[in-house]
């Protein structure tokens, strides 16, 4: 039972966090709802226009393209990133000589500031003299024009996202290290092959965390490609190949000053995100039975 004084102190400790969430997350969310139904350019007061924004979005070719692009990105980037994070975690979770350096290396790209990272890749994927195409050419591989070919540009953004898996790496590694070592010793004694142990023990026991990672990464991927998209490709070769939703929202809001319109797009983004996460959740629920021994 908590005494009064304790209650007050706990309330104090929770206050900044809760106030912060209310003001910086809940309130903006509500405002988005409201603004989506208006036309607002920050100079004149908002003008209520009902669902006009949504109807305009529906007709907006660029919007539809940006949704398609974002979905395509997620389709490839999320599984690949998850795979990368888990692989890193499984490779580096045990202690062996030099493992600290390897772990650092795996995390380091994540620490690089977005802008620097984007500029760096602008250099790396330069079709004529960037290291990537030079290396590919040297071994006789294809040298796509990363910046001008729409498909290639999209893949460039995906590849860029594969190096910044630090957070997923750490979470996956912590999860793996949380599995008691004795379970694996038992596997040694019971002649369980490494594949058997991975499929029947490691994966099922890591699954809840991986699921959470997948959800978070899906949502995160909706916005992760903003900086690369802006700096590297400036929205992409026609037809707007690397204009993803965040860029669309940013452009309409801060460049074209159509805040109401941008808010409507934001709400749509929310809706799509929630839908995808829900679908992922349902699919995985169905598959859980496959893990039974």
């Amino acid at each position, binding site marked *: 039972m908590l005494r009064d004084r304790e209650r007050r102190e706990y309330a104090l400790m929770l206050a900044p966090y809760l106030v912060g969430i209310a003001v910086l997350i809940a309130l903006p969310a509500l405002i988005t709802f409201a603004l989506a139904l208006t036309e607002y350019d920050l100079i004149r007061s908002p003008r209520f226009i009902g669902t006009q924004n949504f109807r305009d979005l529906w007709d907006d070719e660029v919007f539809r393209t940006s949704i398609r692009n974002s979905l395509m990105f997620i389709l490839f980037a999320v599984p690949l990133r998850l795979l990368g994070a888990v692989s890193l975690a499984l490779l580096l979770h045990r202690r062996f000589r030099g493992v600290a350096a390897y772990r650092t290396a795996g995390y380091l790209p994540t620490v690089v500031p977005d802008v620097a990272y984007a500029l760096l890749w602008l250099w790396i994927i330069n079709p004529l003299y960037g290291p990537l195409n030079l290396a590919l050419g040297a071994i006789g591989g294809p040298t796509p024009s990363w910046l001008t070919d729409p498909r290639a540009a999209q893949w460039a953004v995906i590849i860029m996202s594969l190096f910044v898996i630090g957070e997923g790496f750490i979470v996956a590694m912590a999860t793996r290290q949380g599995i*008691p070592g*004795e*379970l694996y010793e*038992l596997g*040694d*004694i*019971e*002649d*369980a092959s490494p594949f058997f142990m991975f499929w029947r023990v490691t994966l099922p026991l890591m699954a809840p965390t991986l699921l959470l990672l997948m959800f978070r990464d899906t949502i995160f991927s909706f916005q992760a490609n903003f900086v690369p998209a802006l700096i590297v490709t400036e929205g992409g070769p026609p037809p707007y190949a690397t204009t993803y939703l965040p860029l669309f929202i940013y452009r309409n809001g801060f460049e074209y000053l159509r805040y109401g319109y941008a808010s409507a797009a934001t709400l749509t983004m929310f809706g799509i995100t929630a839908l995808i996460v829900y679908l992922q959740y349902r699919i995985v629920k169905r598959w859980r039975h496959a893990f039974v*021994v």
Partner: protein
Amino acid sequence: MADLRFAGVRKDYGEVRALRGLDLEVADGEFLVLVGPSGCGKSTALRTAAGLEEVTEGSIHIGGRDVTDVKPAYRNVSMVFQSYALFPHLSVEENIGFGLRARGVKPGRARDKVLAAAELVGCEQLLERKPFQLSGGERQRVALARALVREPDVHLLDEPLSNLDAQLRVYMRAELKRLHQNVGTTMVYVTHDQIEALTLGDRVAVLNEGVLQQLGPPDAVYRRPANRFVARFIGSPAMNLFPAERMDGSLHAGPFVFEARPNLPERVEVGVRPEHVRVDEGDQGAAAEVQVVEMAGNETYLHLKASDSPLVARVGADVRPPVGSTVRVSARPADAYLFDAETGETLS
């Protein structure tokens, strides 16, 4: 079923010498207990037998076969861990059948074997449950069933009862013994509890600091300890030990005086077990002050102090002298043990 032999096994962890040249033979079908304090090397010995640790030197033989370089999976042993190591996401049935499925046994055949093993340990009712739904004792049984289901040559058990509460431990001890009588497989059991060692083992191996102190039936280890360490470690309350002073042909050890044998080394220690300390309220023997009286149900432990030496006596439940009173203590020479003060070896 097979015998297990340690030949000159040494295990170092960097600077630390966990095992120093262990030579030990476990007979086919025997229940051998490895006992000793924390860090004595008993778990290390078990793990080298399982193949979970590599030996630094020496060899391990199972059923006459040198398995020193053989992977754990091919040694045909089973292991029960102190924490049971049950898979939290699998049901009891899946846990028991884990090894069978790993080796590719078809589900139908596996189920029969799992059921048989479950019945042996008495957990056939629990097959559908998950580990988190089980009590400590139930989890223990599942771990045992899993070890039994493969019918290996040797069962290795690493302090399986340590996580159970006292009463359950006593009950499971008997269950284990019954199980061994039923199944008859060679069992090597590690514990730090000397009572478990005495009650369970056909033979007991006492270890300390990586060295085997004594190997023998419980009776031998209790009544004829090879050295001071075994004498003090086995038996509860621990044996009373006094440095002995020689004075005109007698040994004065604490409150006791014994005749000194010829050919005794320079310095000697004398040990008397608490149950051999005779407590009289009359006039015979040395005076001792009663400091603490522990009532243990059917007997009493008296913590005494006699001529500056503390000692413990084990007496009947009805003997309860008040704290602070004086009693008389004595011991028969035949009940006394002599140890070389330098080496700790038993001399009589």
